[in-house]
């Protein structure tokens, strides 16, 4: 439009200028010395005006029209982004050709920039999605992760790190590690790894860290700490450090428990095995001097082999329960009936020791959903223990009651036996625990009460307990919910 306007103004200007020269020459004859000169001037002026009018105007109009076409072509190119060939025409062919090339170059550049922009936008959205994904992953980790920059300031951290080290996650960015990590050893390690300047540098240690203000237990926990270097922007130097802390406290406890269990189990098994081995060797060497001695040896070997077998059974049962691979076969267990059966089974043993077994189950129905065989074993173990540690002439009483408030059945086994020293009460349900002074009174595996505890508490979500007074007797009890709560 601008080109058309300018051309029009130019054309009109040329006509006006010609006319002005002619008119000026004819209306101001007094400025010229002679009449001939004035006539000539007027003639030239009028001729110029006519010439400008005849040539200038059509030319101006032509140029204007061409420029208009060019202008429209440019407009179209701009709006479509596709260059439109410009109409040539001999007159403007040079100009339009150059313009055409410039427009093509410009259009190419435009479309290339536009493509770059689209790629950049796409990349940005992918990056943003990846960043969010990485951040979500970081925050979903149980391990504590802390990323620090080249100035030992926090650049990224997750909630477990904040909880472990005791800082507010929202206020942690750009805070120096000296302020937010109370553990001196950990701070030192992070700084050392960063200062090493070696990208491949990675440090992995087991380290014990005391709980922080946000950690309720405030006890020391064991961590597997990995500290690794992160590259800087040029990917050549160390730009920061990532510290990952994995809590291995429970893992270590389990590992220690396992090795203790293996050590204790092997120790406990060696004792009856020693007897079996020794008596067999004595029989081979004909050290038993008569048939009665031989029979005694056989009995001992049998009793000790049974002991080994019981120990292995108990160990396997406990291990299975601990590993969570025992499935309870739940049914409605009538505890009154079950107790009666246990007492029947144990009657010969009690009679041999002159111990009276008393059934205090009452006339009501005492039932709960439980694994019957397991419950039988629990009551059996408790009654068997009571008989073992009650002197001749004593009493063992088994009672049961319904506790409607807690919706559970309470079974108790009381005896008039030796009682349990106060310092042994807490350890009584531990694996392989046996009261030293009572070892000579009765043989045992040291696993019976632990199995009772596991069956009642782990499998049936009930509870067990004991109250005792040395010299007066003990009362063991357990509670099992009416409805099965176990897995």
């Amino acid at each position: 439009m601008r080109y058309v306007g300018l051309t029009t103004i130019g054309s009109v200007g040329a006509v006006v200028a010609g006319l002005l020269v002619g008119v000026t020459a004819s209306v101001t004859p007094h400025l010229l010395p002679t009449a001939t000169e004035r006539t000539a001037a007027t003639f030239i002026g009028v001729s110029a005006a006519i010439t400008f009018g005849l040539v200038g105007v059509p030319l101006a109009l032509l140029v204007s029209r061409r420029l208009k076409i060019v202008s429209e072509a440019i407009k179209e190119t701009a709006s479509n982004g596709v260059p439109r060939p410009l109409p040539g025409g001999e007159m403007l062919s040079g100009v339009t050709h150059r313009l055409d090339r410039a427009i093509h170059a410009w259009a190419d550049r435009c479309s290339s920039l536009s493509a770059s922009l689209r790629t950049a936008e796409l990349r940005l959205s992918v990056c943003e999605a990846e960043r969010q994904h990485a951040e979500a992953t970081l925050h979903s980790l149980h391990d504590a992760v802390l990323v620090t920059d080249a100035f030992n300031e926090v650049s990224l951290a997750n909630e477990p790190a904040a909880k472990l080290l005791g800082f507010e996650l929202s206020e942690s960015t750009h805070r120096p590690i000296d302020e937010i990590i109370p553990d001196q050893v950990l701070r030192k390690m992070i700084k050392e790894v960063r200062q090493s300047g070696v990208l491949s540098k990675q440090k992995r240690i087991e380290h014990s860290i005391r709980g922080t203000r946000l950690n309720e237990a405030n006890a020391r926990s064991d961590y597997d700490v990995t500290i690794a270097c992160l590259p800087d922007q040029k990917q050549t130097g160390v730009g920061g450090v990532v510290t990952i802390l994995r809590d291995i406290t429970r893992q270590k406890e389990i590992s220690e428990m396992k090795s203790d269990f293996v050590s204790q189990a092997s120790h406990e098994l060696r004792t009856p095995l020693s007897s079996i081995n020794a008596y067999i060797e004595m029989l081979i060497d004909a050290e038993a001097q008569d048939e009665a001695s031989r029979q005694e040896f056989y009995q001992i070997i049998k009793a000790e082999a049974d002991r080994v077998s019981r120990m292995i059974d108990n160990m396997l049962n406990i291990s299975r329960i601990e590993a969570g691979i025992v499935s309870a076969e739940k049914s409605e267990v009538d505890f009154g009936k079950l107790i009666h059966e246990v007492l029947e089974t144990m009657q010969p043993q009690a009679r041999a020791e002159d111990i009276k077994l008393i059934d205090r189950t009452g006339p009501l129905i005492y039932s709960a959903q439980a694994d019957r065989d397991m419950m039988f074993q629990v009551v059996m173990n408790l009654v068997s223990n009571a008989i073992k540690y009650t002197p001749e002439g004593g009493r063992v009483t088994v009672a049961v009651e319904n506790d409607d408030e807690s919706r559970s059945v309470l079974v108790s086994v009381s005896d008039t036996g030796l009682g349990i020293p106060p310092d042994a009460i807490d350890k009584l349900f531990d694996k392989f625990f046996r009261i030293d002074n009572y070892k000579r009174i009765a043989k045992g595996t040291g696993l019976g009460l632990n199995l009772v505890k596991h069956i009642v508490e782990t499998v049936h979500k009930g509870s067990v307990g004991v109250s005792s007074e040395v010299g007066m007797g003990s009362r063991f009890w357990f509670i099992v919910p009416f409805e099965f709560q176990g897995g």
Partner: protein
Amino acid sequence: MSRPPVILVVDDEAHITHVVSLKLSNAGYDVHTAADGEEALEVALSVTPDIIITDLQMPYMNGLELCAKLKERPTTRNLPVILLTARGHALNEEEMKQTNIRQVMSKPFSPRQILDSVEALLKEHKIEDEDSLAA
């Protein structure tokens, strides 16, 4: 006729004391038994055995405590000890210094092995005594 050597067998497992003492009695030794460290100390002071065979883990007083007590007393100071253990115990320097344990035997053990060890230790002990008398 000289008196038979006296052996004290100490273990809280009755079957173990029974089988070891039977093996040694059959071999002609005068065997005494005790069921824990305290009882063993009393018996050792009264019968002055030539050798003690003791379990490590026992109530009241364990095998190492018993050995340390024996080394403190003049009459039992040189008494050689065979230690029976179910834990595969390896003696440390301190325990070696504080006790007179000459051999550690792991459970399950063989009664024949015990008899062999007793005989070897008595022989050794006799030579040592003769040496000290000669000196």
